[in-house]
């Protein structure tokens, strides 16, 4: 459906995209995850035909994009990171315009507008000016504006920036509906939890390069430890032999610092009772136990040596 091969783009001495390749099939949601400045928006802009790459190719349904007026562009819907709306006009006037730029007018345009508004839950506010909308409503309208020509591939460039959790959930619900209709979604974000919730596959980019491209489970497999057990002991050390803990079956790692024992395990449910029993049997009492699960932050940290949020 969408095939991107070895894209490269530089601005002067700055390399924005450096050999990005990815693909997405029908009904698949691919997350493009990376910190600000990683090259996500440039990649999306190249796919949408806004920027010409220095090298590499983009194929939509097996065909390369050829020029500004290539009809294949109808297969793509772009949801820009900015709220690309005319605030002074009503939602309806905005949608009429965005339908018309894809050649839709009359009954076809009305149908498309009604469907898009219904999907994002703004049918009853169609005649309101966009400037009177809340931030979340504008984001939903921004999404609806890209759906009017019924594109097969939806490019979503950080579509939830600056919205409240309720509106974010509403947008996620809309995207899940689209996914269930077989649409291909390419979703850029620097929010790990969004990628975790929505994406079938996640492409992690940093400094314009793809550092990982796999399913969520596949990415977790890149980590030495997926889950960890955190036990706060009553004593500070008191003869705890950390080597013995590491030698327990199913335990990958163990560290003890300031009264807290961290144990990396493969299967949290299976290993937790064993570890706790071993501690009691060896005279180490504890007052609090909690577990931690590895996330994309951990994956990014492991792959790049930097925190995703601090990049």
């Amino acid at each position, binding site marked *: 459906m969408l095939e991107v091969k070895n894209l490269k783009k530089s601005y002067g001495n700055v390399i924005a995209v450096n050999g990005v390749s990815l693909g997405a099939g029908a009904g698949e949601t691919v997350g493009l995850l990376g910190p600000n400045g990683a090259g996500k928006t440039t990649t999306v802009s190249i796919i949408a035909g*806004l*920027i010409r790459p220095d090298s590499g190719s983009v194929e939509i349904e097996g065909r390369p994009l050829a020029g500004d007026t290539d009809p294949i562009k109808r297969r793509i819907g*772009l949801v820009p990171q900015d709220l690309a709306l005319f605030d002074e006009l009503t939602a309806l006037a905005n949608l*009429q315009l965005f339908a018309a730029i*894809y*050649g839709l007018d009359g009954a076809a345009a009305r149908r498309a507008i009604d469907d898009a508004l219904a999907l994002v839950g703004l049918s009853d506010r169609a005649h309101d000016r966009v400037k009177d909308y809340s931030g979340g409503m504008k984001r939903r309208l921004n999404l609806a504006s890209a759906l009017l020509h019924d594109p097969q591939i939806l490019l979503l460039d950080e579509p939830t920036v600056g919205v409240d959790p309720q509106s974010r959930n509403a947008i996620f619900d809309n995207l899940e509906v689209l996914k269930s209709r077989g649409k291909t979604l390419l979703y850029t974000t620097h929010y790990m939890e969004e990628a975790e919730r929505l994406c079938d596959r996640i492409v992690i980019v940093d400094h314009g390069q793809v550092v990982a491209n796999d399913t969520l489970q596949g990415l977790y497999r890149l980590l030495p430890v997926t889950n960890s057990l955190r036990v706060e002991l009553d004593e500070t050390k008191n003869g705890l032999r950390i080597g013995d803990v590491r030698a327990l079956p199913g335990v990958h790692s163990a560290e003890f610092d300031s009264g807290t024992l961290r144990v990396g395990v493969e299967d949290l449910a299976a290993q937790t009772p064993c570890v706790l029993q071993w501690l009691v049997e060896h005279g180490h009492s504890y007052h609090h136990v909690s577990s931690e699960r590895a996330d994309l932050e951990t994956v990014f940290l492991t792959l790049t040596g930097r925190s995703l949020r601090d990049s």
Partner: protein
Amino acid sequence: MMIPFRALVRKDILLFFVDRRALLMSFAIPIAIGSFFGYVLGGAGDQDSSKIPVLAVDQDASNISREIVKRLSGEKALAVKPSTPDEARTAVRKGTATVAVVIPPNFGQNAGRAFFSAREKPQIEMLFDPSHTAERGMVAGILTGDVMQAVSKEVFSAASSQPMIEESLSQVEKSTRLDAEDKKSLEDLLHSVSRWTQRNTDSTRADGSASAGLSIPFTTHEEAVTARRNTKYNGYAHAFAGMVVQFVLFLGIDVGIGLLQQRQRGLWKRFRAAPLSRGVLLGSRAASAAILAFFVVLVNFLFARLVFGVRVEGSMAGFLAVSASFAVMTAGFGMLIAALGKTPEATRGLSIFATLIVVMLGGAWIPMFLFPQWLQKLTVVVPTRWAMDGLEAMTWRGLGLEAAFVPCAVLLGFAAVFGVLAVARFRWETEG
């Protein structure tokens, strides 16, 4: 391609009409300023032109000085009030009077004596506001004429001329510088004047009129050359042309800034993601700008027509052609701003400055004849000058369609140059 093109044009027009600031800048402000300037520049030709405030200080109180003040007071261009020397100086310094004319004691007597001889001439003091040098020159000219008439009238009337003539005869007789022949000629002249004034006093002239001394040997018939005879010049025509040119160019700036804002707000990405040619994207913007500019010109002149009687005295087709050409040039100007500008904020200030310069050079504020010669020649490369020329030719000058050809051609030429530059320099790609 027509559906997107039409929709994009319609969108721009819709945005214009929902933008109060745009409406204010395109209609309310040019109408207000045009009305004001039109009034100041003489209005519709049927109002009293403003008079120059003049103070007259008569320290002589002679027949001649009273006659001078009387004649000054009768001048249409002057508003004359009596005053004292101190009050007059203070008033001119404060700017409440433009000129003060101070007639010194014995002016009448000394001026009469100086009329036939080269003896020292009495002096009239003119105090003037240095910020009104043109008015000073005008008052000086009027005063010269009035003094000549007042003094000659007195000199050629028997009662007061006889002593002056006798004194002059005595001086001629005593003169050692004059040769005999010159003395004889002057004595004959003075005797003739004496007899002539005596006769006019003793008997009524055959035609019943009395002598009034020397008079200006001509009168003038003034006619403002406008579209047709008996058509008064309408100052609002020039004022509205100037303001329309200025504020339509401001609309052009808004067109350019609007494109930059669309780029900044991501709308350009949405448009470019659609299968639209660059011609449709830029062409629709240029078309909407030209339509709006044309509409603004027409509405402003319609207001001037209905309220101030500004007529298209020349060719209506020419007026429409000039307006349309100017509108197209404005669209090109707007596109060029969009192509050269980087951020809306930085571009707006620079564009307004550039626009005000070309508007000023185009003669929209002050008439071009006040410019130095070299600057007047320079204005041929300023599009606003051609817009002004064309609009004025078709309105109050009342010229025919052929007079619109050159302004239209030049304006369309500018539009083509701006358009080509805009397309060449337009940054299509939005950095990621």
